[in-house]
């Protein structure tokens, strides 16, 4: 994995109790040969997320991702159950990278924040166009689009026609600033060119 071990100073790799349940045995799970370092500066455990992803439990993984974001953003966010946009700065680079790596690895580079960031930048940071691309909105009539209803109208599936970047979901109920700050997080500063090259090779490893 690029950039993984070298740059970060403190890497806490906590062993979680929950890790007893491994991802490998589930039906539909991706091969367990993937090795993703669960690095965390914040001392947060990513095993549950990894297990959910590995098991192809996209909806649960998505839920866990949001929970993790709250945990990373701080006490206020945990209590509130959602992240205020300016709290994103408190999320360590290593942690956000880990989350993103996990999503990318288990989705064959289809899902993840850095994927979303690439799509977003490709449409000139237009949220409307981005939402359309990742399928968070759907056409309503000739002129209008509307948000998909959660969770029923989302696609909890890796296979097509689920669009690239569809997951993880970030709440649009409170506007776009939170997602804006996530996608602009320094964790992804160096991923723009890398998505295409390095991660494709990661994806290759999956099989």
């Amino acid at each position: 994995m690029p950039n993984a071990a070298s740059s970060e100073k403190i890497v806490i790799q906590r062993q979680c109790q929950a890790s007893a349940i491994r991802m490998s045995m589930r039906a539909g799970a991706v091969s367990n040969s993937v090795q993703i370092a669960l690095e965390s500066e914040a001392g947060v455990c990513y095993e549950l997320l990894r297990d959910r992803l590995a098991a192809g439990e996209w909806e649960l993984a998505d839920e866990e991702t949001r929970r993790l974001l709250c945990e990373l953003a701080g006490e206020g966010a945990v209590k509130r159950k959602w992240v205020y946009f300016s709290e994103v700065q408190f999320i360590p680079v290593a942690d956000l990278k880990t989350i993103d790596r996990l999503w990318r690895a288990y989705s064959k580079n289809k899902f993840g924040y850095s994927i979303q960031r690439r799509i977003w930048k490709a449409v000139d940071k237009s949220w409307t166009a981005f939402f359309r691309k990742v399928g968070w909105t759907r056409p309503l009539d000739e002129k209008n689009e509307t948000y998909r209803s959660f969770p029923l109208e989302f696609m909890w599936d890796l296979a097509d026609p689920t669009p690239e970047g569809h997951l993880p979901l970030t709440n649009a109920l409170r506007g776009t600033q939170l997602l804006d700050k996530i996608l602009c997080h320094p964790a992804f500063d160096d991923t723009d060119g890398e998505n295409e090259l390095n991660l494709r090779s990661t994806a290759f490893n999956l099989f």
Partner: protein
Amino acid sequence: MAAAVASTVAAGASACFFSATQVGFWQNAGAHRFRVSWDVSSGSTHEGLRSNEADRVYRQGNNSSVGFSPAVSNSPRKSSLKVSSAVLGNGLFTQTKPDIRRIIPETRHGIPVVKLVYVVLEAQYQASLSAAVRSINKSKKDVRFEIVGYLVEELRDTDNYAMFCKDLEDANIFIGSLIFVEELAQKVKIALEKERDRLDAVLVFPSMPEVMRLNKLGTFAMSQLGQSKSAIAQLIRRKRKEEGGRFEETMLKLVRTIPKVLKYLPTDKAQDATRFLMSLQYWLGGSPDNLENLLVMISSSYVPSLKGKKLEFGEPVVFLDTGIWHPLAPQMFDDVKEYLNWYGARRDANDKLKNPNAPVVGLILQRSHIVTGDDGHYVAVVMELEARGTKVVPIFAGGLDFSMPVERFLYDPITRKPLVQSVVSLTGFALVGGPATQDHPRAVRALQKLDVPYIVALPLVFQTTEEWLKSTLGLHPIQVALQVALPELDGGLEPIVFSGRDSRTGKSHALHKRVEQLCTRAINWADLKRKSKAEKKLAVTVFSFPPDKGNVGTAAYLNVFSSIHSVLKELRSDGYNVNGLPENAEALIEEIIQDKEAKFSSPNLNIAYKMNVREYEHLTSYSKALEESWGKPPGNLNSDGQNLLIFGKQYGNIFIGVQPTFGYEGDPMRLLFAKSASPHHGFAAYYAFVEKIFGADAVLHFGTHGSLEFMPGKQVGMSDACYPDSLIGHIPNIYYYAANNPSEATIAKRRSYANTISYLTPPAENAGLYKGLKQLSELISSYQSLKDSGRGPQIVASIISTARQCNLDKDVSLPDEGAHLTSEERDLVVGKIYGKIMEIESRLLPCGLHVIGEPPSAMEAVATLVNIAALDRPEEGIFGLPGILAEAIGREIEEIYRSSDRGVLDDVELLKNINDTCRETISAFVSKTTNKKGQVVDVIEKLGALFMLGRKDPWQEILSKSKFRNADQEKLKTLFDFLAECLRLIVADNELGSLKQALEGKYVEPGPGGDPIRNPKVLPTGKNIHSLDPQSIPTMAALQSAKIVVDRLLERQKLENDGKYPETIALVLWGTDNIKTYGESLAQVLWMLGVKPVPDALGRVNKIEPVPLEELGRPRIDVVVNCSGVFRDLFINQMNLLDRAVKLVSELDEPLELNYVRKHAIEQAASLNISIREAATRIYSNASGSYSSNVNLAVENSSWNDEKQLQDMYVTRKSFAFNSDTPGAGMSERRDIFEAALATADATFQNLDSSEISLTDVSHYFDSDPTKLVENLRSDKKKPNAYIADTTTANAQVRTLGETVRLDARTKLLNPKWYEGMMSSGYEGVREIEKRLTNTMGWSATSGQVDNWVYEEANSTFIEDEAMQKRLLETNPNSFRKLVATFLEANGRGYWETSEENLEKLRQLYAEVEDRIEGVDRN
């Protein structure tokens, strides 16, 4: 029911991330997509039904089963996109079903189930109530709750209503809140009354009085309370007596004082009343906990099955009533200082936000959204602003008076200076008062003090997100009335819909692009306050209608370039950078219109910028959408084939630009489209340039009016896909608008977010007499002195022949020359001519064009004051001067008017005497109160001084010498005090001042638009124009006036139609006209039908009842109503009311010869094979987002082939009906019934509402005239009579169209006073003259009611007169060319027969002027 429960559980279990939807797809894990579709077929259930009920409830168009049981089909995804024109679902505004709010508990033996039914306006209670009930069902051992909730609007649907009634049958508890929509309140009341005795408890929180009276808690009841002696009861009763509308306000006040009241209520004696008050507190506390406790308290006290069980419940958790809230803060703040301290210490804030100079925006929130936890949309706005480096102060109030928190929290605690640079209300409500009552003066005072731009944004209340997105109307009409029209009276700007509503959870959610639009605009307004004048960039935008060089800078009543010059000079001296501004207005025109370099023949305007296609597409995100109408950019409009061209010129930081035109005004094919085309690429490029390249801090649209706000989109409540919103982008919009045009100003305000600043129409003068008319008047006065001498017959003979020369023979029936007349007959004919002459002479006309910053002198205001003085204002205790004078000689003015109209010479003379005396006294009064320069100096004080000295009042000197010396002094004094105030206001100059305020980011005082004569409150100009509360019209006074006009109209028609009543009248409703008259023409329609409006308990007009035939004394007249697009946008509720009236009348069981509506509807139903109710479709307008019949554009641009084409345009564009049975569907095309109804018309009719806009002043009047169209449609090809009502003067008249066109021609186009006045405005004056001729020809085209002599006289005035012709040519060659062309066109189309000599001269002139123009260009 099982399915319903399942869906409820699913909805309940999911936190809503994205708004749910009714129509659309959902997807399971597999690849199959299912579409949930609405059954669009109309299984109509009501055909053949008849009802005589006065106020019919809405009926739905189709019938689906009760509950949420959508049809599931496998239609592929694409097909569902085509839903635009079909009536959706029930045709109502909302398709949501109450069943999604139903929770049915698992029942266990022995545990009682309490059933709660609620009806609320506020969807934010839904989630909170569901949570409360779930929590009870989970945690309480002894009780289970079943709950079902209804949003008020859902009760319109008959199925929902039936389910509601059924739900009440076995309910234990009912809760209602904010039920303020009259028709729905009635439905709730009827259903609730039936079950009230059986119900264990009924709680109705602030609502219409008739529903509130149904409250019941044990012995407590509101009706009883009314009789009791308790202080609260007394208060409520007294208040209710005073004013129905204050009722709920009192309730709210009561709640605020509850804690105090509770202490003094002995619980044992007044337990029930105490519980009611506590309930209110729980309710307003709104959180799931509070609601849980409310339900437990009520059920344990009043539900019999819970007797003896001890259920625990907590005290109401009381939140701050008002305060400051921030999503990150641990608590609400009661103190600004504490808030600012907390804010300053925020760990998350970045440097930008910490900067002490960061902009600060105040937000106004509703507490109920905060306490119920439905605050996602508020959070979105707070985050968006903070992310943009803007600080926020979000304040809230629990009641509906937000002025208090504004005063308390938006000022710096130390300096006491305003803390914010702009304020955004996210409540949608007026600042003071809620759905029922407002206190605008208080709101305005609070906002004036704060002095920052005040934006009132809108959350969706009555509709779900998808319903709003799909609606062509846009925002629900009731919300428009409550949350758009009312906040405007406070000076509220920019009704931007920023949040949607989830159809399942009822929760609000941000609309991301709307939030961005709102916040950016709020910050840009705030920046106007922060930036220095020297750095501010302003884009002055002028119009060009029709697109011709002679028309650049066109605006009603305004000398645009002189005004711009005057504005820019003022700005320059104020510190703005206006480098290079030419010396005078002429030079300015020259620089903008003449392009020194370009070679493009048609526009020939100065090119300010060339935008290449790549740049254009990059800057204009919606450019792709324009390609449907206009193809690939750059296209051929405002384009050189490679680039898009921006016309205009920059002076320092000021850009003066020419707004492109619609682009299709010259294209008959496009004019024939029912819906208007999108803006073209050049149009979009203009605004992209202004915002993104020039970088304007504000745009100033200069004068009435442009085309931006008339671009396609929703009527009100723009979405991302609406062009006015996309075009204006993020730029604050300031718009100079004529004070007399509040309706179109309101369109600009709502659709293009304009802060409209009113300007005065030019000072009016009496038309006076000239040429032959003057001669006639002299002859008449010699007749009066000599009539008893032997010369009488001789003078009469000259009078008659002169009258003939003046073409008065069509207005007055003149005896044959040489016929012998008795002296009575002589008097009568002279009397009639005299009356006509007086009518012409006294007609008011605006002289010249107004220049911003140049108010009229006092003496110029005399004619206006005379007309102000002529009206009785009973509500203010002011009597009109003519009436006072008539009284002084023992006569009644009305009687003198009538007898003068009949031509009784003595009374014509008396009336003239009265009028002259009015003018003299008022002139004397004005001259006494002005200084040597002709300006008014403190009228009131000066007059006061006069009284002190005991000198004669100025008017008294005149009166004492006249026969009116006995006039009532008291009345005179009251009147002249009033006139003094009016005079002061007329000459006040706030137009420049208000513009500067707006540019500095200050609050601009709001004021009504309208006619200063009827409503002097319009003055002084320079106000942010608003219209009125749409639910307040028609007023009873308007109904009275309407009756008079309708009766006169019917009388006149009978006279000209063998004593027969017209069976159908085709008429037009205008927005401005109805605003100015408080709904007179609206009331006219009702009175023709024989229906009268009935106000509800709050004084809002939304019911009607038929006037019995015996009382009416005549048949009910059928109508075909053509509402202007502006009327449609402003008064959709009134269209609804009218449609209900027509349908009601069509279903009355009456003889057909006394009910023409029914007669025709039956015939049409048979021939079109539809129901009678459907056939009774009479209320038409354009498709949503489209305006006008385009006949005006075709005529102005001479781009039509024949009259048939004009008529096709009219029918195609105007055949969109409003149906009160499917109001949510908006306008739907009903061309078949439209034509069938028009074919029965015997008369066409329009109203003239103010003196300065008459038939040929604007193109709108002929644009909406269907006279020849009706002639064509009628099976007998008979031309209908055409009438115009003129209510501009105290003596209202109904004239034929022909008479009115003649009057207009005589007083304007042909009147030296008028055209010389115009010529004095130079360039723009010539255009005004040309416009009158073009509009006159428009009348020939649509009605054929223009006499040959009008063209003939116009030709001799402007063409034959060499000197005049030269002046016109020199001053504005382009407009002169158009004038000549119009003469030739009038002849070519057969409207004007004239000598070959005249025509030859015109042709020659045309060739000359062409050469001349090209020569000019070549130089």
